[in-house]
């Protein structure tokens, strides 16, 4: 069974490909949806095409599936339209799957289930990564605000932090927002830090 993954994000495609290989599928190709990707895909004659539901290139892909004369058999979305739970899970996870006509659903279902699990896992990693990035960025802002206070008001690091925290609590704001306001004000006043 030849599986083509159309994906822009190198990482997500790799996560999915690894999962499929571990499960014993070995004819897997990754195609980014750029330029003449449709012609490439046509030449590959895939049995299953997996694509991110959020990809703006889905309309381009579907048009190819509708008009292609090169594909021996028609390809349509999902394989078992009656399996609403599966389709719901796929859409929630952001997976769209196109399957060649005549492929038995018992053969395709495990691929789809795996794609759903991997897409969900990837989304979780993304969220965690995003949170970690935000946390790091916040810490840098707070550190800069602290050093402004330490320099301008001769406070220790602990005192500077305590001052930021109590201002935030008094104003009902996040510490990082107070810190950002302080930095902006300091820049405007030519604080130079």
């Amino acid at each position, binding site marked *: 069974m030849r599986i083509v993954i159309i994906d822009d994000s190198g990482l997500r495609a790799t996560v999915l490909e690894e999962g499929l290989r571990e499960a014993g599928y070995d004819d897997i190709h990754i195609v980014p949806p750029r330029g003449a990707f449709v012609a490439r895909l046509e030449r590959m004659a895939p049995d299953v095409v997996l694509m991110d539901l*959020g*990809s*703006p*290139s889905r309309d381009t892909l579907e*048009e190819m599936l509708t008009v292609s004369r090169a594909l021996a058999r028609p390809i349509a*979305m999902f394989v078992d339209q009656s399996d609403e739970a599966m389709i719901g899970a796929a*859409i929630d996870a952001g997976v769209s799957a196109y399957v060649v006509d005549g492929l038995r659903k018992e053969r395709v279902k495990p691929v789809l289930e795996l794609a759903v699990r991997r897409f969900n896992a990837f989304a979780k990693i993304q969220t965690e990564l995003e949170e970690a990035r935000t946390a790091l960025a916040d810490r840098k802002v707070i550190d800069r605000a602290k050093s402004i206070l330490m320099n301008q008001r001769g406070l220790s690091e602990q005192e500077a932090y305590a001052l930021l925290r109590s201002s935030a609590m008094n104003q009902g704001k996040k510490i990082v927002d107070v810190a950002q306001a302080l930095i902006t004000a300091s820049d405007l006043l030519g604080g130079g830090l």
Partner: protein
Amino acid sequence: MMTSLKIAFLPLTDAAVLAVARERGFAEEEGLAIDLVRTTSWATLRDRLVFGQVQAAHMLAPLAIAVTLGLSQQPAALAAPYKLNVNGNMLVMANDFARALEPDIAARLADPLGTAHDFAAAIGLWKRKPVIGVVHRFSSHAIMLRYWLASAGIDPDRDVLLRVLPPSLTVEAMAAGEIDGFIAGEPWGSAAIDAGLAEAVAIGERIWRRGVEKVLAFRTGWLEENPDPVDRLLRALARAAAWCDDPAHHEALAHLLSGPRYVDQPADLLLRALDGRVVARAGDPPLASPDFMLFSREATAFPWRSQALWIYSQLVRWGMVDHSPAHAAQAAAVFRPDVFRRALADSDVPMPGASMKLEGAVELPLAVGSRRGELTLGPDRFFDGRVFDPERLDDFLAGFPPPR
């Protein structure tokens, strides 16, 4: 008690009525909390609606008909009780290509028939078979483009290459030289013009003066089972649409749509379609096109069954569906004037007395029979003068050469 509704949309200027219903409180006044789900492809918008992730969608009218006829992946009966706009498309072509057309752009846009013939000549001069981007096979724009090309004897399936790509990727594809032009809803044509990549070649409003664009589509089953939220939503949209049409609100509307939750493009680009002041070539003064995009006046939102049938006639013409009385009835039934009437019965929206009319027969603004209020229909001519009589569908179809 607020009712929650999820509605999928694509980042386009004609999602305005939905955005305004949410952001200016019209939905809330009707007891609705609407969650607008930004989507980047028509395929995903369709899947979200068909598989029940959302209750309604900002959909291309021909796509709603195609899904119902089983022409676009999973078949599902869809219902469109409300039109979100008419008009709003523009065909733009690369500057080099447009050089072979009438250089006076105002004259070029005012004469679609002449321009179509110039376009036919320009095809022969171009370095390759021109690649024209369309947003979907079942888009109003693709259907209008085919109609326009064919008027000059151009076979859209043979003489040009129609390439499907989502509106948000059109400008990028122009810049990369992957396409030679495209037809799409605003602001994408204006964005390509502003980037100096293209100039206007035809405006939707000059091809069909009142061209059906986006509809609000539901799954028919859900619509039938939930009359109360459907009616409340339609009332909220009718008030939002009147707000959108008011020129005094255009600037605020452009600003609202320019945000990242909606179209995420500069407000001054969005304002052009709303004000009907089209910049047709980078640096040119704007051209007045007051009917460039309509939301409310002239009963714009009313889903005339004859319009669904006109769309169907074009799907048949291009061999996308086999003609049969059953298919025609299915297509016509997608538009739901009965639901529109029920929902807006006690409002001040002018209510047409009929559900079908001749399409393309109104030359000058025309006062027509209305159950309430003053209703004036705007000019709705096709540029080639054809008139569509929904009672004589077969005769109309016989007027086109059979599909290859």
